[in-house]
């Protein structure tokens, strides 16, 4: 950039500081650009990382809760009713931590699209457990004939 004449210098910049101001201006423009891009793409980027659109937004929220509290039953109430206790109060007992003066969390790390995987694994687990229960039902149905309908028949 031409700094040899006073005319080419921006208002307020003396020749002595011209180079410094030029570099500051470039760095400011870089910061502005990156901040704007980050702010714009954080939410969509996170959602894609987590598992949207395979999972709905509420499902992503649910899966995050299940990871945070290491509890398959944890879920997001949408909408959260006003004036009730913070959502974490209901699940805090199941959270995995090494407690101490500097606590350390023990939840699972969330890699690319892991929430989809966690959900599939949990559904498979639940299906297996249901099937296991289903196999037990006919055996017990014999002893309780008053049962109106058995799901296996």
């Amino acid at each position: 950039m031409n700094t040899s004449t006073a005319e080419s210098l921006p208002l307020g910049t003396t020749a002595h500081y011209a180079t410094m101001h030029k570099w500051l201006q470039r760095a400011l423009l870089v910061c502005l650009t990156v901040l704007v891009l980050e702010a714009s793409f954080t939410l969509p980027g996170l959602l894609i990382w987590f598992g949207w659109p395979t999972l709905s937004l509420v499902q992503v929220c649910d899966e995050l809760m299940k990871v945070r509290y290491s509890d398959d039953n944890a879920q997001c109430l949408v909408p959260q009713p006003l004036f009730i206790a913070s959502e974490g109060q209901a699940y805090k007992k199941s959270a995995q931590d090494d407690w101490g003066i500097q606590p350390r969390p023990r939840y699972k790390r969330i890699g690319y699209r892991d929430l989809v995987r966690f959900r599939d694994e949990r559904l498979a687990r639940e299906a297996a457990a249901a099937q296991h229960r289903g196999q037990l039902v006919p055996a017990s149905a014999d002893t309780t004939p008053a049962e109106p309908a058995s799901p296996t028949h």
Partner: protein
Amino acid sequence: MSTLAQKPPGSFGGYDAHQDHSAQAQKRADKWMIPGTLLMGTGILGIIGFPLFLWGLRLQVNAAKAGLSVRPVIVTLIGYLVIIDSTLNSAGWMMDLVANHTLINRLITAGWGAVFDGGYFWHYNEIWVGGTGAPGEKAWQISLIMVVFCGRMAAGIGLLQMKRWGQQWLIVFCWMGLIVWIGYNLNMTFYGDVRYANITFPVWGWWIYDIFYITPFLAIPYLHTVNREIFSD
């Protein structure tokens, strides 16, 4: 602007007209940059606001090339950037503070926490006010919104108006950035287990994401070395 004001007023026929044209050109540029900045401050709409801002900046640069006395480009950048930096910080933290049980906040803030900063994931929405439960974090959040970011935004507006108080107060609030960065990072380091254990991108992630918020440190050298005669009382 005021370097021209040192000429005796009225002595030169074109002077008043030149001042008028300059003010109008500046206003025309700001008309694009202000909505652009408001949109960029919201975060997600920034991608719409950015072209508006750049268009305004282009108008301003062209006006300067045409010989009109408009704001220096670097003053425009500093002014709007400190406003954007403060708005983005405040918006995120206000959501965590007062809208912490909304779906959008549980996705963006707690989700961001799970990836970049465990302080926003670990036992999130568990203390009675909701939001982050990381040691010290709520206190930083409230004090920085109320003191630093509010003040920095006001000073940024003053700077854009080329007011002396704007320059002076922006110096003060940019130096506060030093306390913010040193104190906040030390807190994170001391409670590093909460902040970084078992998140997606420990340490690296936070630094790459957040380092671009160092804008006050880029403003300080300029504000101390600019010829302050260009700011008016």
